[in-house]
């Protein structure tokens, strides 16, 4: 029997396309009958979407300038 605890453990596998065979079948069946697990999956999707929106600190000019200085000095490919 496929339980809520099992379904929760497979939610990222599903997103990653790593669920197949009977496990995939029972996982999908479980979600059709369990509103709590469906809610959990929606919330997981939202958490991932919000993570992707976290603003990233720009790379400092100091870092870029140091790397660029080395890049300018490299011998050009013929």
């Amino acid at each position, binding site marked *: 029997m496929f*339980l809520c605890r099992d379904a*929760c453990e497979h939610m*990222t596998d599903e997103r990653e396309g790593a669920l197949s065979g009977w496990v995939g079948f029972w996982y999908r069946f479980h979600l059709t009958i369990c509103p709590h697990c469906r809610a959990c999956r929606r919330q997981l999707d939202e958490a991932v979407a919000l*993570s992707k929106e976290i603003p990233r600190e720009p*790379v400092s000019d100091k870092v870029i300038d140091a*790397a660029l200085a080395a890049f300018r000095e490299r011998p050009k490919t013929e």
Partner: protein
Amino acid sequence: MTDAGGPDDAVLVSRLRDGDEAAFRELVGSMHRGLLRVAVAFVESPSAAEEVVQETWLAVVAQIDGFEGRSSLRTWIGTILSNRAKTRGVRDKRSVPFSSLTREDVDPVEPERFNAGGTWSLPPARWDDAPESLVLRKEAREAIERELKTLPEAQRTVVVLRDLEGWSSEEVCNVLEISETNQRVLLHRGRQRLRGALERYHSGTDR
């Protein structure tokens, strides 16, 4: 695991070999944070991590003509970085392989929310659909960001690389030298923790 570079990599590498500074600036801008995240997992301090990433860029400049496209450019650069970071970790006596960091990070998420029969005893708190107002969305995002900083090292590294920096699972596995399954477990544990933070935010119990 192979993740051969695609046409985008070929164009970028060609521009780099031609000395295109804009291409190099673009590369550093897009990869530096991810590399720093990897380095932090191997070395003893943020400043050591910065140094290792800086050395990596110098190595990339010196070796770009030798890139053969057998992996993605990101994997190639990430592997240069991880090798250097491991060497630095050994030198600084912090020779902890990434795989050992993963062992303590794989406990099930919130086992107390399930009863002995494996069904929910404390189901996820419901809330309306994703917040539409920009202010609420920003607050929810900040709740996620706070939780991200508290994740165990291995989970945080995988979540940051996958969800914030956009690395593929193959790139993460190759650079961190972990299995696909291990990577998915870490990603899942980390994401579930972030989901929990979002749940607390929506239920008003966020710290």
